[in-house]
């Protein structure tokens, strides 16, 4: 009887404690429903954005400077004079010679992504849908792969592919990038396949579809967001792979960008504007790709990891 009357004003002191005033409840609400302090949010948001993209702004602005401007002592803080968009044309014939590296990187990443798509999709589908002897062993194998990286096994990879010279070194890198990204792709795809109700598959089977048809005609259209997430991930990882490429491709003209580019900024490099042009060309597309799967990075990735 008294408890009901007492309970109503209870939240007010608690809320006022948190917001600082006690005369009236804050306009921004109380407790977990309290809307955040707008000034604090703006400061925080601006700070985060600035810190996270500052290096890439330096890169972008640097790619528009002349050589004299980018090596000026002391460096000017302002915007580039010009700006010299011509760098993006001149770079291809400059000493940095990025075309070979860019082609190598593109071929290897596309190849590795297709390989993973081809191999991980059926494996993930089968794992999500069927029980079979050796399933646990297979999952264990996948888990081990996920914990290893090309860096850990680089010397073994170097020995294994020692005689894969010329364009064969690209094939070797496609296999390596494919293999080391396979586990992750299988995890994430099987989580998505498992999220599709089995009844849908069974209905298709009753209608006479084979397993492969169920996969291509029924499941794939339903789980494509998961597939896209996996594809983007594999592509970006292969695009940025460095350790294996650095020991496996010995022909200078066939090395991917991650390996060929650092050679141009030793002690003596003055052509930073071209280096930044190349890094901008290499970074912007993958950042946009990654942006597309941003929403699925929350939840999607751990769905695969925790299951």
């Amino acid at each position, binding site marked *: 009887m008294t408890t009901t009357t007492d309970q109503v004003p*209870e939240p007010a002191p*608690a809320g006022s404690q*948190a917001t600082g005033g006690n005369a009236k409840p804050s306009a921004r609400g109380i*407790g*977990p429903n309290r809307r*955040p302090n707008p000034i604090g949010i703006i400061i925080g948001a601006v700070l*985060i*954005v600035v810190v996270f993209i500052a*290096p*890439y702004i*330096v890169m972008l602005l640097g790619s528009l400077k002349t050589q004299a401007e980018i090596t000026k002592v002391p*460096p000017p803080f302002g915007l580039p004079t010009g700006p010299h968009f011509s760098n993006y044309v001149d770079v291809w014939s400059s000493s940095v010679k990025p075309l070979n590296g860019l082609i190598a990187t593109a071929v290897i990443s596309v190849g590795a992504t297709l390989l993973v798509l081809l*191999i*991980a999709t*059926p494996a993930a589908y*089968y794992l999500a849908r*069927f*029980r079979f*002897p050796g399933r646990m062993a297979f999952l264990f*194998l*996948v888990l*081990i*792969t996920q914990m*290893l*990286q090309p*860096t*850990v*096994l*680089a*010397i*073994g990879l*170097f020995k*294994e592919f020692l005689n894969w010279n010329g364009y064969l070194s690209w094939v070797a890198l496609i*296999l*390596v990038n494919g*293999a*080391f990204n*396979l*586990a992750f792709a*299988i995890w994430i795809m099987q989580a998505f396949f498992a999220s599709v109700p089995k009844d849908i598959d*069974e209905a298709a089977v*009753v209608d006479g*579809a*084979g*397993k492969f048809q169920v996969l291509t005609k029924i499941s794939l259209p339903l789980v494509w967001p998961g597939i896209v997430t996996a594809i983007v991930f594999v592509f970006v990882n292969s695009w*940025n792979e460095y350790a294996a490429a650095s*020991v496996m491709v010995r022909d200078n003209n066939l090395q991917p960008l*991650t390996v060929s580019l*650092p050679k141009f900024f030793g002690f003596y490099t003055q052509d930073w504007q071209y280096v*930044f042009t190349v*890094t901008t060309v*290499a*970074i912007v597309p993958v*950042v946009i790709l*990654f*942006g597309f799967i941003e929403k699925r*990075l929350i*939840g999607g*990735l751990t769905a695969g990891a*925790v299951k």
Partner: protein
Amino acid sequence: MCSSRSRLKRRRVAELTAAPTPSAIAAGDQSGDTGGGARGSGSGGGLRRLAAAAPWLLPAVILIAGVVLYPAYLMIYNAFRKYSKYGFDQGAAGWDNFKLALTFPGVPIGRILINTVVWVVVVVAGTLLISLALAQFLNKTFRGRKLVRLAVIVPWAASVVMTSSIFLNALNPNYGLATRLLRSIGLLGQDTALTQQPMTAFWVAVVVAIFVSLPFTTYTLLAGLQAVPHDVLEAAHVDGAGSAAIYRRIVLPILRPAIAVAALVNIINVFNSLPILQILNQTAGYNEGLTTTPLVFLYKNNLGPGVSSALSVINFGFCLVIIAIYLIVVKPTKQQ
């Protein structure tokens, strides 16, 4: 297209309704585990189900066996082989490569081992602490949140090689923008070249390693925050708990699995991080600013596959020890 599908459908329905035809059996069980369990039992059914699974899984098994397990075997094998300067196998080496890897003259191995531990602990702990705050912030609803979240993933998508090279440029002692900024606010002496001395380069690399590890970690923790039930927070608040107490007693325990995943993945990634130190530590050769992972690659070029394989094996064991210590000390899976 349509007619062929319906023809197929009719044929399959006929097969299913009639007694199992040889082709249906050869194709394996159509209805998955339940059907398989009902129809076949014992090792015969098991074998048949294994045979049915093979075409779907075998390519993955072959790729993993050929490109992950085989090089692992090769590495361990090579760790016990003696190699000439030109890479010719000269027979068994016993533990010589391991001894040489840890005692090679001119290599400050003690310092490098300490660096490795410091590297992993500082980078992973720093990343986790900053990410906890970032995730908490990005979990609030505010205008422009999507944009801020997008900014946070940029270092994740960008190549670590290229991010490190930008930092290298910005820290150039003459024309680096960060150098000028740090000097103008008095944090850096006029003649200091951060990347050209082993130890300062090491600490620069620590900062860059944290920077590139933040996006993944923040997103993993952000995913964990989605599991925090809003009504529980509200109830705790009504009961008079302050924000600090709510965070410590409710949010953190729920985040525990996400923190564990993030910590483990980061320990493995950070331990095996190669390009950051290779690019930002401009001192050539063996020096006091290295960790064991770049040392493996220096050994590969200077001493050949035998010694570098031995150090790789030691390196991998070292990483497992750090993970074991983390699991024992922090007990990330313990229920509270």
